[in-house]
């Protein structure tokens, strides 16, 4: 398993501002993922961040709103830009450890960042 540290843990943000969430992993990983979990909802993948390339965004998420950096194999950031109350969510960083082609992969999550936009 991995130790995945996220910060901030929690923040209250003003409408129209931007906030950057940091994710640090204790080992080198190829792929890092950012999820959003809105109140009462399940996890939704925002984007996949590979080191050295542009992040890949899922349908409904765009780079201008959620820019991602991945400067090395242990670190990533997600920025939530021009925030509105609808962005109030838990944002989770995760990493995937690959099994063999015949077995499954496992994903582990950071502690999450709980953002409330007022």
């Amino acid at each position, binding site marked *: *398993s991995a130790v995945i540290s996220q910060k901030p843990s929690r923040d209250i943000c003003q409408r129209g501002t931007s906030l950057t969430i940091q994710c640090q992993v204790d080992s080198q990983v190829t792929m890092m*993922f950012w999820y959003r979990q809105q109140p009462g*909802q*399940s*996890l*939704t*993948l925002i984007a*996949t961040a590979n080191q050295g390339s542009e992040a890949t965004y899922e349908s409904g998420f765009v780079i201008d709103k959620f820019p991602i950096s991945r400067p090395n194999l242990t670190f990533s950031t997600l920025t939530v830009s021009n925030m509105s109350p609808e962005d109030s969510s*838990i944002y*989770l960083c995760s990493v995937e450890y690959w*099994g063999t*082609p015949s*077995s*499954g*992969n*496992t*994903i*582990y*999550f*950071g*502690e*999450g960042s*709980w953002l409330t936009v007022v």
Partner: protein
Amino acid sequence: EDKVVQSPLSLVVHEGDTVTLNCSYEVTNFRSLLWYKQEKKAPTFLFMLTSSGIEKKSGRLSSILDKKELFSILNITATQTGDSAIYLCAVEGSYGQNFVFGPGTRLSVLP
């Protein structure tokens, strides 16, 4: 489109009860199914299932997968208040694809 369905969505029991949580899925080229427990923010890993009929067990929790009928169950025996959480099921498709999460089952265990 890949889909994961969990039932019930919410469940209230008393300490000592046994509960069974269900997860059914439709996914292209299934590889694995994972169960997570989410108490506060971050989901914590419980089980990974890849083969049918082989029970995974950890203390009072156990899980099994049926790849023919495309579902898994998570059993919790002798429930405790500390078992109160959201239990998430996630399925992985073909190698390298992303995981698809179900909506979760919110379990409340009353003293």
